[in-house]
């Protein structure tokens, strides 16, 4: 299982990478933990690869005035080791600890995984729940796309082939916010049969903000509209159950050898309930 031949360009800078992306049939290689298996199975046969994983411009986690900025080539290991994320966005570390395995987390990057857009990956649901913004850059300039507009379908995003995901911007969470993720994994791959990410804020016992996002359930990660119904409640078990049931109504769930559509819908309700319950408890 040797990849088909390609030309490799080791980018010297972001500008250099963007220039190389102008050529047809060119793919970006960051950590490669998703792309290299695809190359090996020859599910992808690009003519050219542009390596960016080594670019320090694309690495690092820093506080900004509105939240936190994460360079796209930051590895999962660096996310786990980040004191800033542990304090400001503990949800990122909780989810990252279960992505891939130790070796994959040492090389795999947050930007690479998001750009790959596997419909069963954990991080996209977290990005939706946290209302992340993605900075995309091309030779023509920069633009910012909300995570909520970014994921278009299985392995499909709002990015053009000439664009590079350069950073992830996380807006600061409201005061008294609690976050949680609950999932059911396909044991062999670790990918989510269903995962649910929840963000809940409370004030004097009442829910003031509630967001719920799913992954693995449908052909693209998505926000559950029913989460808004939690606002104004105490976040009690009954209210959470109502939101969890409403969240999957009318959803066309994936159906494959790992889980039937009916089973996935059931798991989604359980995951949603667990994530919301934990987020409410933490929102103190």
């Amino acid at each position, binding site marked *: *299982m*040797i*990849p*088909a*031949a*390609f*030309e*490799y360009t*080791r980018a010297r800078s972001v500008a250099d990478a963007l220039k190389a992306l102008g050529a047809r049939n060119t793919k970006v*290689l960051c950590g*490669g*933990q998703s792309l*290299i*298996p695809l*190359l*090996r*199975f020859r599910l992808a046969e690009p003519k050219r*690869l542009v*390596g960016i*994983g080594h670019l320090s411009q694309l690495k690092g986690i820093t506080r900004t005035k509105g939240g936190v900025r994460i360079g796209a080539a930051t590895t999962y*290991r660096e996310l786990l080791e980040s004191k800033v994320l542990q304090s400001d966005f503990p949800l990122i570390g909780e989810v990252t*600890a279960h992505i*891939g*395995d*130790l*070796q*994959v987390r*040492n*090389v795999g990057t947050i930007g690479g995984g998001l750009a790959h857009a596997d419909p069963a990956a954990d991080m996209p649901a977290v990005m939706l729940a946290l209302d992340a913004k993605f900075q995309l850059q091309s030779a023509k300039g920069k633009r910012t796309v909300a995570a909520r507009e970014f994921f278009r379908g299985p392995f499909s995003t709002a990015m053009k082939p000439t664009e590079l995901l350069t950073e992830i911007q996380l807006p600061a969470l409201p005061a008294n916010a609690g976050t949680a993720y609950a999932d059911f994994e396909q044991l062999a791959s*670790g990918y989510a049969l269903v995962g649910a990410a929840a963000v809940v804020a409370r004030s004097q016992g009442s829910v003031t903000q509630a967001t719920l996002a799913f992954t693995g359930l449908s052909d693209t990660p998505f926000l559950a509209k029913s989460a808004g119904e939690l606002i104004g409640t105490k976040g009690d078990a009954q209210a959470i159950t109502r939101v969890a049931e409403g969240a999957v109504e009318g959803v066309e769930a994936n159906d494959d050898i790992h889980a039937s559509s009916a089973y996935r819908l059931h798991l989604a309700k359980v995951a949603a309930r667990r994530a919301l319950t934990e987020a409410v408890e933490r929102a103190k």
Partner: protein
Amino acid sequence: MKQSITLTVNGTDRAVNVESRALLAYVLRDQLDLTGTHVGCDTSQCGACTVLLDGHAVKSCTLLAVQVEGRAITTIEGLSADGLHPVQQAFWEKHGLQCGFCTPGMILTAVDLLSQNPDPSEAEIRHGLEGNYCRCTGYQNIVAAIGAAAAALRSGKRAGAAA
């Protein structure tokens, strides 16, 4: 199309002429004769091909050699210049291997795990080994060996600090 790159392998700079598509595992095995790096599943699952990249465990079947140009790679052959490394010693003593195929990957993963967490619980050791498969031992003695190695490394460090 081949290109020449330099890798620091087990402390020595090695120039290799590789195709862009050459995977690190095969460059180590076929061009540098470091056959202690095993290729098991060939699909980034089993961890037999694990090596250290700047001290961090990685699956060498899922990295292009050109991707790690200029970086430091440690294979099982280079883990210890002088006798067995404490993790190797512990695998020996605790019978942490049977056929031995997964062992280089297990040991190098354990070295990284213990550098991040010098005193892991059994659950943390098992979580750290998620990316390494063993078809013989049932993992029990591997987990015991890593626990023993952690203790040996900790006491070695204390002895070193006292000296």
